[in-house]
């Protein structure tokens, strides 16, 4: 990465390379105009320098064709930038379905990460190469922004809402992870290292149970290591969700959560809502906001009772309930 005089960041994913091509195009266009205009200014300044105080140059009113010419050409060049940039952005905005999902929680001033198998890290992130990695992110306090320069991706983590980014590292290596949204005193210490490992190495590392150099250990770490879904299941049970939300049947107070994720539910007011992360989160914190048709608003709100990490585990578990049921139907 460092070759005497650092000048260009590593491109560690296919997407990063595509962004660099677009960057190259922009560089060519802007350099052309910058150099061209500066040369024109220098040449004019020399050629038309005032020779005597008696100089009375002839004024030119202007030229409409010229104005149109130098508005339309730059505009077309800009349109290329717009279409190219937007296309790239849109294509990259949704993670592939087979991504490994990592949960990231920003907190003043650290990144808390949980791997799909439940392993936790602080600040650093270990991922396997050649696998799409999706980060589902939120924040516990202020807005942070998760930034991996060598992947050319960045996304704010906003309290009260989930955002996601994804990348697919090409080969093993280490990269910077930075927080780019000013978040307080130790903003510049909210950094970590992304370690891309060969898949086999990752399996070994993640399965080892070693917690790396985590200094802030959470209570759950004492027991045997559980996957995110398993931890979510534990939260589901200990919070008492299972009483009303598993099994279904007429006696149940709440809708069964098996297989609901990703479907549309009809609400009491007749509107429909897509069951996604945000809806589940909202329904846990403020159940009465959107009541599914056929049920009463009897569930107590859990505002302030479930920490963000547990919330993410819960959601992961509810998602897994849907995956189990759709797996049988043979959906792609």
């Amino acid at each position: 990465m460092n070759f005497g005089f650092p000048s260009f960041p590593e491109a560690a994913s296919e997407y990063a390379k595509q962004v660099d091509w677009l960057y190259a195009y922009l560089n060519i266009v802007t350099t052309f105009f910058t150099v061209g205009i500066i040369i024109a200014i220098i040449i004019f300044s020399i050629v038309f320098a005032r020779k005597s105080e008696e100089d009375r140059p002839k004024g030119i009113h202007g030229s409409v064709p010229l104005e149109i010419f130098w508005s339309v050409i730059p505009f077309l060049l800009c349109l290329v930038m717009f279409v190219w940039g937007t296309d790239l952005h849109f294509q990259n905005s949704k993670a592939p379905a087979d991504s490994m999902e990592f949960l990231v929680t920003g907190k003043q001033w650290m990144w808390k990460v949980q791997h799909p198998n439940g392993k936790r890290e602080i600040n650093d992130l270990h991922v396997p190469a050649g696998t799409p990695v999706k980060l589902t992110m939120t924040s516990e306090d202020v807005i942070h922004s998760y930034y991996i320069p060598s992947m050319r991706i960045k996304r704010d983590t906003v309290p009260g809402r989930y955002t996601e980014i994804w990348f697919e590292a090409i080969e093993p290596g280490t990269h910077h992870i930075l927080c780019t949204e000013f978040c307080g005193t130790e903003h510049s210490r909210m950094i970590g290292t992304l370690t891309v490992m060969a898949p086999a190495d990752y399996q070994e590392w993640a399965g080892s149970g070693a917690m790396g150099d985590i200094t802030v250990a959470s209570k759950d770490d004492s027991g045997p290591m559980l996957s995110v879904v398993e931890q979510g299941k534990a939260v589901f049970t200990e919070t008492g969700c299972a009483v009303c939300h598993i099994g279904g049947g007429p006696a149940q107070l709440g809708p069964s959560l098996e297989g609901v994720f990703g479907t549309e539910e009809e609400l009491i007011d007749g509107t429909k809502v897509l069951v996604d992360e945000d809806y589940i989160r909202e329904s846990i914190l403020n159940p009465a906001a959107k009541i599914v048709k056929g049920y009463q608003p009897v569930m107590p709100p859990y505002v302030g009772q479930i920490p963000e990490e547990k919330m993410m585990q819960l959601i992961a578990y509810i998602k897994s309930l849907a995956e189990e049921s759709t797996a049988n139907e043979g959906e792609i």
Partner: protein
Amino acid sequence: MSEAVTAKNYLNHESTIKSWLLTVDHKRIGVMYLISIIVFFTIGSFAAALFRLELMTPDANILQHETYNKLFTMHGVVMIFFFLVPSVPAVLGNFLLPLMLGTKDVAFPRLNLASWYLFMTGGMLALGAVILGGIDTGWTFYTPYSSTYANGNVIMAAFGVFVTGFSSILTGLNFVVTIHKMRAPGLNWFKLPLFVWAQYATSIIMVLGTPVIAITMVLIILERGLGIGIFNPALGGDPVLFQHLFWFYSHPAVYIMILPGFGVISEVIACFSRKRIFGYEFIALSSLAIAFIGFFVWGHHLFVSSQSIYAGMIFSILSFTVGIPTAIKIFNWVATLYGGSIKMTTPMIYALGFIGLFLVGGLTGLYLATLAIDVHLHDTYFVVAHFHYVMVGGMVFAWLCGLHFWWPKMFGVMYNEAAAKVAAITIFIGFNLTFFPQFILGYMGMPRRYHTYPEEWQVLHVLSTAGATVLAFGFTVFFITMFVSLFGKKDAGRNPWQATGLEWTHADSPPDPHNFLEDPKVTIRYAYDYEDESLYAEEGKEG
């Protein structure tokens, strides 16, 4: 001041402090703004110098994290709200607008004075917040950090911005009315100097944009003081709404900070090419186009803050669109040089420097309008460099350019050309050395507002700090040159540059308290009529 000239002018007809503090003369108010913003500029610069020094090394050496954060916040708040926004509009605009329009004063002189007092009140509140503990939110005041988590006097600073906002609104209102209703007989819209057009566009933004930041600041104050929850996610508030409201003003605000600069450059380029400006109508109307489209692009500040990607797409294309009128201006200025009679005076050096730097600043804006690239560059040093190229390379250069150009008119004295040229060239070199490395740093991923950073970026940071030293030296030379000139002989003469415009052809240097000894009547065929021989007649060279 020199006793050589005894003619009555706006500077010497009364000299008590009271006569300054209670003046309703637009020229004196302009000078008062000049002094005030130089004080703010100095304060902001010292903050910048301190943290630039700190950034020489990757680790924290001379400052605490907390102090560093307070310093860059102070730099941002002071420079943007108390230097850049009033720099050209309130100083040169106040001084020149009535002169250029051939009228005795702005439409509401007392309101004008009230604006200055509001400005100073806001400035004192912001400085007070800095002294009484500082603020560490950054000039953007992003919630929920500013409303819930930040240290220091956010309420006081926000109130300072609120008050200053009204100063800006009232100044804008005053200018719009003055331009509409107070023009001298015969001075129709398309004979106006382009500086007036630029001021007009700026003033419209000031009147229509600033109230939104005012109400946003009120909400911040309520949120922080009373915890009403409007931006607090725990209560259902949405921090992203704050960003929308904030940028609804603050993006147009960067046009407040650059459009008047365009006006200055148009004047200077025409004068020292001794040639009417190329494509007058296009330059004039492109200012209005920028002001108008500039209101619809704010969302490009939210590309990564979980804004809808469709909204992102719309804001992206609109952001490209606003570049076109700007390109038109640059091409027209260069075309004006063609076939002219170019004289390299200090203002001309600044003006050509402006074109070069603003070009870089403007074109790097295209990177930030491109969605995929902006995701990478957002909140990195690339943005810092872009912003400084536009604001320092653009507006500060335009401000210096205008100050050098109208200095003889304002104070009746001429500065030392050689020293001023040294300052201009030093500032140009120092500026590029400071900020060009930051583009490279930005693409490498260096985030803004970082106190410490990974070691491999140190080389570029050292370069940048070295450049800042050169820049500081340049500004010192500039200040000394201008200050010394005030004590020189008042012999600049009525029209030392042989320029068009009522302020040169009809008013003395310095002007009479009532601007014109007799009401001017406009007879020119078109604006910038440099073929008019009367410009070069008797009073051209010697005053």
